[in-house]
């Protein structure tokens, strides 16, 4: 039984499981379709939120990214978890009490304006759509790499599976499938991590293994620091770079997380306000299991790499090296023709002068793709074939669960916010449910098509999604809850100012040839959403003080959402 056999069986089994759950959890009303009927247990919702949140990027790429960035990788670890504190304390309980279906619902009602609603719908569509294309790409890559079928067929199979359970079950189907997907992905992430931790430092807990000792009695991190310096890299556990950018990027990722519609909407599905708070706790706990394991994997993988390849003769490299060379994720080029691998930092001038050139090294000879750190782990640790298959199923679960959550936001934005609340308020619930199914079907197909021919900008849209969410939704919702003075004029101009500021900064540096030395205070485009949020706050309050107070009806609504008692299940009006 080879890897192929195991991969087909395990992936096939998980897909059958998802379809079975979808058949069991069909949605029969708009409430079930948008918010799973509002009756999801907080623990179940926490698990679904964790799967919703952790994408192909978290599962496959993050540990590798950290592994190359060292200390700086903290921006992803803190940025993609800290947002849940903001979500739990500032947004989730109040939005649950508000008790409607979508984020534009809240913005539109709180700011008593269809303009505000439409700005929110457009922002929600843009953020979710750019994000979903990346997931489709992740599905295609996972299939093509492991099942040796074409990338295109990988995307098509992924689209069919999501199509089936999202169109049929809406939020209800998606929620219970996400629970299964969380179990698959966390098991798949932990098994190789535990084995590698055991092999390298002799403890089964990767989080503790981070501070462990190698078999020769030396501290793991100290060894890694030394190895990094010896090869001309930056010391792993510290950074000489400016803290300003790290600060702003971390903040933008946190604020963006708290403002992403597909995350917020998950808290509309629990029965009570107190459940929304609890559920955020569960969600972060489930996320933290993966996010505290990732930095350990990063350290193990980096130490392994630096230890096992440098100055080794090409013919003596371990078997996994040749396997992964065939996928293009590892590339070796013998620049100085000595038959050995030289892996070092050839951008480091003093290292080149003092060590590399005197030794006859003519540049770094090894190219390592970040994704390999998770994907090749089972082979490096010589784990059985079924573990490799499990990692594939885990990566697919991560990509599919995130895609489904995003597609639901797209569909509810169109059928609920756009059609029912704005264009055609008189349609019946049955018609709205049908239009929700049609729009989610259309969204799946368009996302799949975009995944087949990903436009070049996809790799860079993550900065966009987080930046725009941080500069628009987060401040608009927080002010809507915590300020009774904030009015329609203030919020709308704040959102537009935040969006325009953030979008033009990102566009300038990503597409119109801006260079890093022109960064404002050294802030990279990934971190500009933080400043966009501040711009939003300033403009909002500036405009609000010179324009009329919100009407009494809205003040009443604010007082209402501040008190937990009396939250009904999410309803229409």
């Amino acid at each position: 039984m080879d890897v192929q056999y195991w991969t087909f069986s395990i992936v096939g089994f998980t897909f059958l499981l998802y379809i079975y759950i979808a058949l069991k959890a069909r949605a029969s009303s708009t409430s079930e379709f948008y918010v799973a009927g509002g009756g999801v247990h907080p623990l179940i919702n926490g698990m679904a939120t964790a799967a919703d949140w952790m994408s192909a990027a978290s599962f496959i790429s993050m540990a590798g990214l950290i592994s190359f960035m060292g200390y700086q990788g903290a921006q992803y670890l803190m940025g993609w978890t800290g947002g849940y504190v903001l979500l739990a304390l500032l947004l989730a309980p109040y939005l649950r009490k508000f008790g409607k279906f979508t984020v534009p619902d809240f913005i539109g009602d709180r700011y008593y304006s269809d303009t505000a609603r439409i700005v929110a719908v457009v922002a929600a569509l843009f953020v979710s759509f750019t994000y979903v294309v990346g997931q489709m790409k992740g599905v295609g890559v996972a299939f093509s790499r492991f099942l040796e079928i074409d990338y295109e067929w990988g995307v098509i199979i992924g689209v069919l599976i999501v199509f089936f359970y999202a169109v049929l079950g809406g939020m209800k189907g998606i929620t219970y499938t996400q629970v299964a997907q969380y179990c698959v992905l966390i098991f798949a992430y932990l098994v190789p991590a535990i084995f590698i931790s055991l092999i390298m430092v002799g403890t089964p807990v990767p989080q503790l293994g981070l501070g462990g000792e190698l078999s020769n009695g030396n501290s793991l991190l100290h060894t890694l620091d030394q190895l990094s310096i010896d090869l001309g890299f930056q010391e792993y556990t510290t950074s000489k770079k400016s803290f300003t950018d790290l600060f702003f990027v971390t903040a933008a990722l946190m604020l963006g997380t708290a403002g992403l519609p597909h995350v917020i909407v998950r808290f509309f599905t629990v029965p009570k306000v107190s459940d929304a708070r609890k559920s955020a706790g569960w969600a972060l706990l489930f996320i933290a299991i993966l996010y505290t394991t990732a930095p350990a994997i990063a350290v193990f993988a980096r130490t392994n790499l630096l230890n096992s390849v440098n100055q080794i003769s090409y013919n003596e490299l371990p078997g996994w090296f040749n396997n992964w060379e065939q996928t293009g994720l590892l590339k070796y080029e013998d620049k100085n023709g000595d038959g050995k691998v030289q892996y070092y930092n050839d951008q480091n001038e003093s290292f080149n002068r003092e060590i590399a050139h005197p030794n006859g090294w003519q540049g770094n000879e090894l190219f390592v793709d970040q994704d390999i750190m998770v994907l090749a782990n089972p082979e490096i640790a010589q784990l059985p074939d079924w573990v490799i298959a499990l990692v594939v199923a885990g990566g697919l679960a991560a990509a599919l669960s995130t895609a489904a959550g995003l597609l639901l936001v797209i569909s509810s934005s169109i059928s609920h916010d756009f059609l029912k609340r704005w264009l055609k308020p008189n349609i019946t619930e049955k018609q709205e449910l049908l239009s929700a199914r049609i729009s989610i079907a259309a969204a799946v197909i368009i996302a799949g098509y975009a995944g087949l021919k990903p436009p070049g900008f996809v790799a860079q849209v993550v900065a966009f999604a987080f930046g725009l969410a941080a500069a628009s939704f987060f401040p608009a919702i927080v002010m809507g809850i915590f300020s009774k003075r904030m009015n329609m004029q203030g919020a709308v101009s704040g959102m537009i100012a935040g969006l325009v500021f953030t979008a033009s900064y990102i566009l300038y540096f990503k597409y119109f040839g801006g260079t890093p030395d022109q960064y404002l205070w050294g802030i990279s485009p990934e971190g500009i959403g933080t400043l966009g949020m501040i711009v939003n706050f300033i403009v909002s309050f500036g405009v609000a003080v010179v324009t009329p107070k919100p009407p009494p009806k809205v003040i009443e609504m604010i007082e209402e959402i501040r008190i937990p008692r009396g939250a009904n299940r999410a309803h229409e009006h």
Partner: protein
Amino acid sequence: MSERNAKKYWNQNIRYLLLLLILWFAVSFGFGILLAPSLNKFSIAGVKLGFWFAQQGSIYVFVIIIYLYVFLMNRLDKDYDVND
């Protein structure tokens, strides 16, 4: 609930929020970024303290903050008889 009680309930809620958000800021942006270089002189379980906060500790504290919030708010809701 009377208007006065509603105001008191809300103010206490804001006090809890500020306290917890200061903690949130301190462990991540404070210990994990701004103070990390000085904290690196110490270590916890074999890991430099600043690095540990940046890549492990802050995440543990985030989880604790949310559960602390759940506990404090459930108690407050009961005190003011607004629990659901």
